[in-house]
């Protein structure tokens, strides 16, 4: 073997080691959550009310609370994201404005979530008098996931093969007819992808809702607009900080595994749907 071939092997080995180490760390994270969380999980854990300060019972209503906030956030955010994406792809002509707007979306995506929580609480909670409630949480999360939704939708629309639009134009469709009968149906997978990613982001968020939308106990399902809800994220946080018994900590891991599964399922589904977006290149 000459010198270069040896270096080639060394470089390959070195990079392979780095890759393996990265994967090992991430897999360890997953394995740790499964190993610690799985023993706590059984049917009762998933289907019962949390009792005795998290040491007994399950996480049914925490899970429902997380789902309510997620769903609410997407419901509020989707029309806005859809409108904004359509406006930018179909109606806006100036490339420069498009670029600037996209830049801003990314900036919004980068804003630390705790700032959404604090500002959102003062604006929705105090100024609009929604208080610490699932409504406040929903609105804050809706703003937070807006960029995720919008970018996914926009990318899907922009990737639409030109021939669809050409066909629509040839039929003499108005812009609105075009949107309704061509663009939306054709970019449906992109919209679904965006929705799923948005749901995943909302599900994983704690800082934005921990003092704006949640309660540890007392309320199971919200019955008014201004009720707080229990959520998986804050349940884990409180148990990690306040729990008295090892059983409560074990339950926190159980709740962690449930949350992680929820997020992973959403991301995997998003991945699946994204694979089905028709691309320009497949013309």
């Amino acid at each position, binding site marked *: 073997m000459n010198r270069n071939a040896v270096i080639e092997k060394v470089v390959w080995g070195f990079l392979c080691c780095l890759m393996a180490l990265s994967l090992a760390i991430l897999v360890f994270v997953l394995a740790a959550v499964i190993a610690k969380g799985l023993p706590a999980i059984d049917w009762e854990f998933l289907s019962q009310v949390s009792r005795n300060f998290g040491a007994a019972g399950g996480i049914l209503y925490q899970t429902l609370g997380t789902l309510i906030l997620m769903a609410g956030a997407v419901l509020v955010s989707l029309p806005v994201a859809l409108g904004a994406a359509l406006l930018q792809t179909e109606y806006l002509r100036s490339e420069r404005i498009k670029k600037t707007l996209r830049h801003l979306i990314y900036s919004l995506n980068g804003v630390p979530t705790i700032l959404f929580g604090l500002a959102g609480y003062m604006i929705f909670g105090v100024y609009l008098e929604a208080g610490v409630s699932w409504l406040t949480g929903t609105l804050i999360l809706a703003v937070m996931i807006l960029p995720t939704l919008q970018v996914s939708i926009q990318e899907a629309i922009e990737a639409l093969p030109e021939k669809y639009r050409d066909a629509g134009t040839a039929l003499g469709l108005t812009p609105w007819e075009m949107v309704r009968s061509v663009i939306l149906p054709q970019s449906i997978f992109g919209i679904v992808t965006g929705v799923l990613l948005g749901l995943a982001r909302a599900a994983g968020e704690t800082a934005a809702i921990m003092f704006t939308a949640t309660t540890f106990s007392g309320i199971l399902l919200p019955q008014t607009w201004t009720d707080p809800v229990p959520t998986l994220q804050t349940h884990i946080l409180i148990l*990690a900080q306040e729990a008295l018994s090892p059983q409560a900590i074990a339950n926190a891991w159980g709740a962690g595994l449930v949350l992680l599964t929820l997020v992973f399922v959403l991301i*995997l589904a998003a*991945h699946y749907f994204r694979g089905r977006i028709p691309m320009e290149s497949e013309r």
Partner: protein
Amino acid sequence: MAFISLATVVMLFAFLVQQSLSVIAAEKWNFLFGLDWWAGETYGALPMIYGSLMVTGLALILVLPLALGGAVFTSEYLPARYRLWIKGLMELFAGVPGIIYGLLGVALLGGWVKNTFGLIDGNTLLTAALLLGIMVLPTIMTLAEDALHAVPGQYRDTAFSLGLMKWQVVLSAVIPKALPGIAGAVFLGLGRAMGETIAVMLVIGGLDKIPDPWFNVFASGQSIPSKLGREAAEAIGTDLQWSALMALGLTLFLMVMILTFMGNFFLKRAQ
């Protein structure tokens, strides 16, 4: 409607500025450079600013070799079939909620740091940095990989035709070409790390002090998001303390925005 993101960012900024006016009026420059934060008396934010920068910087140093090594390996050496698997996996791990990392940090990492380095306590700047590093590893790796992968094949072909070995091709043709994209990936990852609240809050130790000496990463510290997360509930409705926290939020906002803008700037240049 398209301007709703613009409106949100501007409103958030205006809100933070408006809320922090009173503490800035009271503390002036002492807010940025003061070393002492004692609610009700004095608000010096330097320890928190230091903590945020230190933890983020350290996380970067720890994670960069892994992320870039992994990205180069995936893009240049791995067969396409595996590449997609890795990309999917990274996307999956990028979504792991911060609270999960927090739980891991409290239950495992803290103890590990304490025992490995023979410390008297495991809640340190290093622990927080390690946790953040793991958190942003998938993000940086996958974005950097995108940048490498986007380098057109002709650059590789040209380099190969000069008789270079593969590692020389990668080093002299592919990486320089992908550098703006890689830089963008790193900045965006840093922005995410700097804003993370929950995971850091649970392991950083909560001490509003710059360690002595300042590079002692085995000491406890405090980052801006962690301070906000721990003190905001108490301060809601008070005047000066709340204002001081909002000013901290403003500082964080500006620091993260700079990182995000740099990230986008480089990514745009890469395209």
